[in-house]
């Protein structure tokens, strides 16, 4: 009988514990559901309305939203000093929560800067008045194989610009060269994949692609070779380089060669690149910064083709009279109009802008990966701020009761706590954006491609953390603060004054 009382207590406590557990699980599941819902809405909004070009608008939008909250705080006479004091008194918790925001925002802006750099590269490459012609079915130059005899007729079609009574076009052979690195770092690649473009006429190609050479350089000669100083050696193969690859190849030289070089940071006119028994000599550096051509080496096709075992042409680039005419040529070669189509041979043709747009599929894949990472890291950040705000509220239950008794309505309590979490988010977001901005301008390498199967072009580019990227970072931070603060704030506003005062 004596033991029966504790036994009954245990029995009566057990269902309560189970109920408490179930309620807690439901609460957390509810929070996760809300997070998933908000994430889905945010992703949908971003996919349909936000591009890297208009994302800068998110910065004024974020500040406007925060300003609106402050205005509400001001007109509702909510004691914001009370919230600020809470943040400063519990500065360690505030800082720890901010660190999560800083990291998430910093990493996101860095990654978005990488993707933005790739996207800008693809956008900046290509002239809307140019049309790229590849062999039938080919969407990438590396697998294209154009019949030489049909190229002349294709170039003679109406709509192609003419200079000196000749069609303005560039006959090209795109190939990738596997070049040994002089002194590879142990554990790192021993060869560099070098993109070489063999050209029929470099001056015509430069006109089609709108590239000039840096001062002091010249296009390779009609022969494409020049005699070596040592008459016993084979002639030097003349090449011009993009600026990016000129920097990278300079780094591939042996330490001794770098020490003796005129410019250890970049290959200069007159420098040579060994290629088995032959040597390539640099005759010029192209102004190609910010385009995919920045990673290319151009040479005479009749010299480099046989040397590397590729005698055929892969690409024909036509300069149309204008962008509208270029689109017409694309439609004509692709047979989009049944009554007006090219019938002599079947080819794939794209305006250059469309072609490079299709090459940004890699960016799309990276973007999807970044969204996943941002979502998951964002969830971590939300959990952090939610913990902080729940704890802040549980410690200030009596304060809330007092405020309610003083006449503060429920929504004012909600705004008060929401503003507190948004303040942490704004602080963390701004510092994160500053950290992310430090990546701006860094040189990086990656691949751009059409996405279907392996392949693509290795490109050198710069990370671009612009206002759009910063806008996305800041908005993510504010969203984390909003979602993480909303549920605790909702629970705070539901307190009944007298019960809260009793604690």
């Amino acid at each position, binding site marked *: 009988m004596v033991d029966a009382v504790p036994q009954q207590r245990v029995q009566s406590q057990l269902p309560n514990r189970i109920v*408490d*557990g179930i309620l*807690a699980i439901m*609460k*957390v599941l509810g929070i996760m559901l809300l997070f998933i819902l908000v994430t889905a809405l945010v992703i949908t909004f971003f996919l349909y309305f936000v591009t890297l070009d208009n994302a800068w608008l998110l910065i004024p939008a974020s500040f406007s939203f925060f300003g609106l909250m402050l205005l509400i705080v001001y007109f509702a006479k909510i004691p914001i000093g009370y919230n600020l004091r809470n943040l400063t008194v519990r500065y360690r*918790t505030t800082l*720890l*929560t901010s*660190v*999560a925001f800083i*990291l*998430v925002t910093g*990493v996101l802006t*860095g*990654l978005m800067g*990488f993707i933005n750099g790739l996207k800008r590269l693809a956008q900046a490459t290509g002239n809307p008045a140019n049309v790229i012609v590849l062999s*039938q*079915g*080919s969407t990438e130059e*590396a*697998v294209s*194989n154009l*019949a030489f005899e049909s190229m002349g007729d294709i170039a003679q079609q109406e709509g192609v610009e003419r200079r000196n009574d000749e069609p303005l076009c560039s006959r090209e052979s795109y*190939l*990738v*060269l*596997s*070049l040994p690195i002089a002194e590879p770092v142990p554990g*790192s*690649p*021993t060869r*560099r*994949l070098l993109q070489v473009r063999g050209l029929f006429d470099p001056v015509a190609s430069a006109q089609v692609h709108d590239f000039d050479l840096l001062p002091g350089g010249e296009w390779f000669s009609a022969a494409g070779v020049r005699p070596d100083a040592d008459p016993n050696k084979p002639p030097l193969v003349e090449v011009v380089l993009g600026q990016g690859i000129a920097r990278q190849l300079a780094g591939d030289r042996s330490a001794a060669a770098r020490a003796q070089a005129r410019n250890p940071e970049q290959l200069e006119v007159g420098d040579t690149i060994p*290629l*088995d028994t032959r040597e390539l000599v640099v005759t010029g550096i192209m102004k190609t910064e910010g385009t995919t051509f920045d990673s290319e080496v151009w040479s005479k096709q009749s010299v480099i083709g046989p*040397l*590397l*075992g*590729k005698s055929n042409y892969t690409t024909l680039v036509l300069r149309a009279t204008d962008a509208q005419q270029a689109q017409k040529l694309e439609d004509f070669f692709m047979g989009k109009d049944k009554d007006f189509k090219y019938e002599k041979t079947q080819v794939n043709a794209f305006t250059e802008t469309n072609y490079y747009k299709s090459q940004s599929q890699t960016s799309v894949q*990276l973007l999807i990966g970044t969204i996943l990472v941002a979502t*998951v*890291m964002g*969830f*971590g950040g939300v*959990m*952090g701020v*939610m*913990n*902080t705000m*729940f*704890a802040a509220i*549980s*410690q200030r239950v009596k304060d809330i009761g007092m405020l309610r008794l003083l006449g503060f309505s429920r929504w004012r309590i909600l705004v008060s706590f929401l503003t507190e979490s948004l303040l942490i988010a704004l602080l963390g977001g701004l510092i994160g954006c500053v950290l992310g901005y430090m990546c701006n301008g860094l040189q990086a*390498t*990656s*691949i751009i491609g059409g*996405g*279907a*199967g*392996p392949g693509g072009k290795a490109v050198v580019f710069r990370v671009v953390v612009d206002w759009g990227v910063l806008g996305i970072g800041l908005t993510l931070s504010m969203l984390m603060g909003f979602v993480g603060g909303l549920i605790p704030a909702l629970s705070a506003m539901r307190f009944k004054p007298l019960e809260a005062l009793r604690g």
Partner: protein
Amino acid sequence: MKFMMLIFKNLRRNLVRSMLTSAGVMVLVFVITLIWSILGFLDMATSEKSANFKGIVTEKWSIPSQLPFSYANTLENGAAREESDVKPMDSMTWQFFIGSVDKTNIGFSTFIFAFCMEPKKLLTMMDELDSLQPGPKAELDKAIKAMEANRQGIIVGQKRLAAIEKKVGDRIKVFGINYRDLELECEIVGTFPPGRYDNNTCINRDYLNASLDAYKASKGKPHPLAEKTLNLVWVKVPTKDSFTKMSGQIDNSPMFAAPPVKIETASSGVSNFLAAYKDLLMILRYLLAPAIIITLTVVISNAISISVRERRKEMAVLKVIGFQPNQIIFLVLGEAILLGVVAGAISSIGTYYFVNRVIGGIPFQIAFFSSFPVLDGALWWGAAIGFITSFAGSILPALSTRSIKVVDVFSKVA
């Protein structure tokens, strides 16, 4: 045991906080598991093996490598000319056929990327397929036999099969992209086991070569790529020494002058190919993974700090009833570690089974890898990450409990 019960009870006391923190740990460990699996897989692919070396023979300068098929026989023998020369334990040739099942609409849903090779080599030379479990091995063996009996038979990866909306037994026509004007009429005789080869296709090399002969017969001239059909030759040798010797045999052979060839270890070849992804992989390895781990530590640290601050009175009581400061430290550490280890383990083990068994790998295209398995290490990664981050996150809050003075706490209460 009583100590453990106390830890459990403390965690249960604020269930919402414990669950929020666990949820944070789980999602962050999920991403780290994915990132480490991709990096670990690539590390394995680029690290040298101590035995059963695989070498790749390719064109010396150009990519894609395009060699005449007449090189195949000699290279499959490691260019051995003398009795004392090293011969490969096994070898295979690869000819790539890139095509589309729709001549006009070329895209993800019609694209075919095929290795044309000897079917029997699938089970002896292809990574992962050479170490299949008996069940999947028997299935693949059946498909291989069907390919050998019918040279138009092809094996298609499961995701590719779904993408082109075909099934085993269907016939398809593949229009060549790299082999212009070549059309292969194929019959799907089987699929690859789920995983690495989900998006690949295997065609019998005899059929491709016969089709090139037929092209020559019908057009009166060889196909433009007729002398460039051999893309890679794989050779397997027992040791590094035999690989080095075989490299010499191939380098010094007069057979391979135009175009010249090179041999490199498989790991070196893959590593060179991945060089363009160097920065992306560095971001994953040195920026993203550490940032996630720090975020995880911060989330745990935050939760534990709050918990300690809220329980100062309780800890003062514990001190009054005889608990030593170190015991209280262990209590706080125990709570954090239990939560971190359990949540981390559930997440990474769950990820392992979900990704490998349900979705068949992490779908992420890097070079020629289109899907990555979650590595076996994931079975312990979660618990380890949970342990380390929860320890790092809770050590300072735990140590701060030493400064709790009973007199101070109760003087405020009074």
